[in-house]
């Protein structure tokens, strides 16, 4: 009986481990090329069809390296829907959040005791002058923000706004 229980615990532990180690999965939202490198003009090695399942290996900018039955290579990030859980399944979403290292989503919310923000609360909210002054005290001067950006090796560059594509 006792051995049985320990066996169950070990099994559970193994299951949790494998869930934590499993690579993130995804589904192709549309047909798209799998390329040898993360560039639009890189050699095409295969083609994904809508609904194809993939295993996500890593990310580079707007590209995901994936493994699928069609082949291994790089696909545009926005052509892939991460995860294969069905919407509306809270448990699966929680597990996904866990496996992707993004704990703090899902069911955790209900247990921490910090309230959410619903319409009624927002409507009933009273002006908090002290808190607002505190918020305003954290304002950063433009020159400081530029320095901070430079420390992060960020360089500003021109880029046109995107047109609205219907």
């Amino acid at each position: 009986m006792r051995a049985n229980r320990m066996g169950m615990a070990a099994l559970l532990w193994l299951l949790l481990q494998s869930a934590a180690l499993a690579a993130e999965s995804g589904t192709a939202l549309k047909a798209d090329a799998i390329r040898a490198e993360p560039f639009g003009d890189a050699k095409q090695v295969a083609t994904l069809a809508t609904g194809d399942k993939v295993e996500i290996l890593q990310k580079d900018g707007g590209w995901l390296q994936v493994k699928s039955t069609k082949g291994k290579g790089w696909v545009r990030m926005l052509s892939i829907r991460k995860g294969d859980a069905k919407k509306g399944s809270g448990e699966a979403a929680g597990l996904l959040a866990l496996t992707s290292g993004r704990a703090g989503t899902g069911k955790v919310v209900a247990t921490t005791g910090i309230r959410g923000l619903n319409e009624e609360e927002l409507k009933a909210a009273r002006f908090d002058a002290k808190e607002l002054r505190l918020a305003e005290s954290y304002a950063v001067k433009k020159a400081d923000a530029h320095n901070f950006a430079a420390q992060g090796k960020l360089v500003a560059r021109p880029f046109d706004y995107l047109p609205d594509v219907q």
Partner: protein
Amino acid sequence: MKTLMKWVSVIGVLFFVLDAAALDFGELRDKLKAELPVNPKLVEAAKELKGPDETEEIAIGRQIAGNLLGAAPLVKDSKLQKYVNQIGEWVASQSERPDLPWHFGVIQSNDVNAFAAPGGYIFVTLGLYRLLQDEAELAGVLGHEIGHVIRKHHLKLLQQSKLVDLGGKALAKEVGGNDKAQKLIGSGAEIVARGLDKDAEFEADRLGVVLATRAGYDAFGLPGVLQQIGHIAGDESSVALLFKTHPLPDDRLAKLDSAMGDRFDRVKGLTVSSRFYRPKP
């Protein structure tokens, strides 16, 4: 009838121009005055479209921000607050309104959401902040909210709902609550619980991606966050308000995909993950 059609088309053009670019309104009005017979109704309509001036805009936003903080105070972590202001100010300085007094904050709520009020007050919930993986994702989220401010989406909503008194006198910045501003925004911070139209959200997504890109970040920060939010089941209470007031993440991602296309192929940016500030659990 013909004259009526002419005016309808003139007003149509006016709307289009206003929507398409931040064109100086006074200049346009002068042009119309010079080129067309003066129609007092049109001039009046033009004044309505222009809305409150910047001082009024900031006073309205400040009131909304104070109310929102009344519902959810700041996370008491000054390093975190300073950090989001550094990033926010840098991203905002890439916009056409770099000189607004921008303010950013992380508020104590496990909801996944972010709020923008006119005049440059922007707040992210701790619940959303904890989903972020790197600085580029934070820049994308702040960029989306900055987009709402620079295109005055909430001000336009207030104007549409006739809450803003358009002929009103300037609203002085006061230390405490501003009664006049409060009258304009309805009850508490309800304005932030009211959804904008879907197109305003899609537009803010496009603006957010571009502002983060201009700031040197990986353009795919905001899409990454949206993919992550898409994982949260729709029946989770943490996303109830977000999903009620925004199009669903999958729709936003599809719109971003068609707008972004291959335009970012040669634009590599930084994620700056090494210094990304993670608040204590």
